[in-house]
C-alpha cells in the first residue's frame, strides 16, 4: 500500500513541504515521507512518536536539526557536550527540526538524523561528542552509549543513528 493514500489532514508530504505549510491547527496530522513518521501539530511544532516538545534555553537560544540536547534544572534544553556521569544523565535527545519560536521537537528514541562531531563509521556506538550538540562514535560501546550509528560520514554532516538501543553494558 502506498503511504500517499493515507488520508491524514495533509496526506503524505516531504519534510520540506510540511515545514512550508501555514495555517495548520492544533491536532492536524501529516505523514512525513522524509522521516517516515506520522506527525501531529501541537500548536508550536510538528511532533512525531519519537518526539517531545521542549523550550530552548536562552543559551543557545536556537537549535538546528540534528543537535544533541540536554535539560537544564528548569527543564529547558541546551546543547549536550561530553562530560561527567551527571552531565550524561541530563541528555534528553536529538532535535528533529530546527527550533521554531523558541520551541523544538526532540526525539528521545528511534531512528533520527544527528549531527556528526567527527568521522563516523556505521555500526558503532553513539556517544556525546566534545563539540557541543554533536555526536561521536565508539568502537568499544560501554556505559554512556546512547545508541548505534546507522551510516558512515564526516564531521558536520547529518547522519542516521538509532537512539536508545538495548543496554550495551552495565
Amino acid at each position, binding site marked *: 500500500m502506498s503511504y500517499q493514500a493515507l488520508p491524514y489532514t495533509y496526506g503524505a508530504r516531504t519534510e520540506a513541504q510540511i515545514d512550508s505549510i501555514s495555517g495548520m491547527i492544533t491536532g492536524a*496530522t501529516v505523514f512525513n515521507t522524509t522521516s517516515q513518521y506520522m506527525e501531529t501539530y501541537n500548536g508550536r511544532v510538528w*511532533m512525531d*512518536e519519537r518526539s*517531545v516538545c521542549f523550550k530552548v534555553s536562552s543559551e543557545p537560544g536556537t537549535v538546528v536539526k540534528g543537535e544533541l540536547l540536554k535539560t537544564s534544572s528548569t*527543564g529547558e534544553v541546551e546543547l549536550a557536550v561530553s562530560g561527567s556521569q551527571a552531565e*550524561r*544523565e541530563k541528555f534528553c535527545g536529538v532535535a528533529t527540526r530546527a527550533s521554531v519560536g523558541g520551541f523544538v521537537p526532540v526525539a528521545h528514541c528511534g531512528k533520527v538524523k544527528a549531527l556528526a562531531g567527527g568521522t563516523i563509521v556505521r555500526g558503532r556506538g553513539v556517544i556525546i561528542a566534545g563539540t557541543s550538540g554533536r555526536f561521536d562514535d565508539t568502537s568499544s560501546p560501554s556505559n554512556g552509549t546512547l545508541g548505534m550509528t546507522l551510516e558512515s560520514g564526516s564531521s558536520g554532516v547529518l547522519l542516521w543513528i538509532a537512539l536508545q538501543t538495548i543496554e550495551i553494558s*552495565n
Partner: protein
Amino acid sequence: MSYTFNEKGGTNYGIKTFNQIFSPDRLVTTSANYWNPTLISGDTVLCKMQYTHASNVIDNYKLLTWYDFDQGGSVVYGAHWIGTGIYLCYCNESGGWGVSEFVCQPLLEDEPTPSPGARSIVQRATTGAEASQPMGIALEPASAKGDFATVAMMGVWPAKRFGTLTLDSAVYSRRDGTGLVTATQPASYASGAMSKALDINYPVVSNSESEEVNGALICIWGTAAEQW
C-alpha cells in the same frame, strides 16, 4: 474507520485528554472526564497530554487505535487502546494495580497460573532487582492476577509519584510494591533508570470519585542514564 475524518486531525474522535481515555472516572456521567463512546475495533483518537514546561503550556499527542485482540472470538484479551510502544501485558499480582502505576518485568522461574500466553508478565516492583527491570506505565487497571492490561514502554505519560522529582535527572521505579516513580535509584546508578520528568507536579486521578494523588508527567526513554 480509522484515519478518514480530516476535520478531526485524521482520526475518528479527534483530540481527547488522557483522563477522558484512561482515568478511572471516565465512565462516570458527572465527572469532568466523562467520555463513553461505542467503540469499534480500528477506531482512532489523539490522546492529549498537556504539561507546563518552563512556564509554557505544551501539548503532547499520541495516536491510539482501539483494537479487539480477540477479533470477535471468545473474549480472552479483550479490546484496548494501543499505539506505538504500548503492549498488552499479564498482571502477576493478586491484587492488581491502578492506572499510572509503574510495573516491571521480573525474572520468573515458574510459569504463572492462569496462563499468560505470549504476553509479558509484569508486576509492581518489590525489590531493587525487580525495579532494575522496568517495563512501563500501566494505562489500564488490573484487578486480579491473570488480568490483561495495557502498559506503555515509551513516550509521555502520567505516573504516580513518590517524593520530589527534578527536571534534569533520571526517574526510577519504587521497590516497595506501590508502583510509584521516584528520583532514587533502586540499586546502583546504572540500574533501572527509565525516564525523565517533563512536569514534576501532574496530579493523577486515582479512582472513580475523581480523587487525585501526586503525580508527574514523565517521558519513558527520555534520558541516557539507563545506558550509563
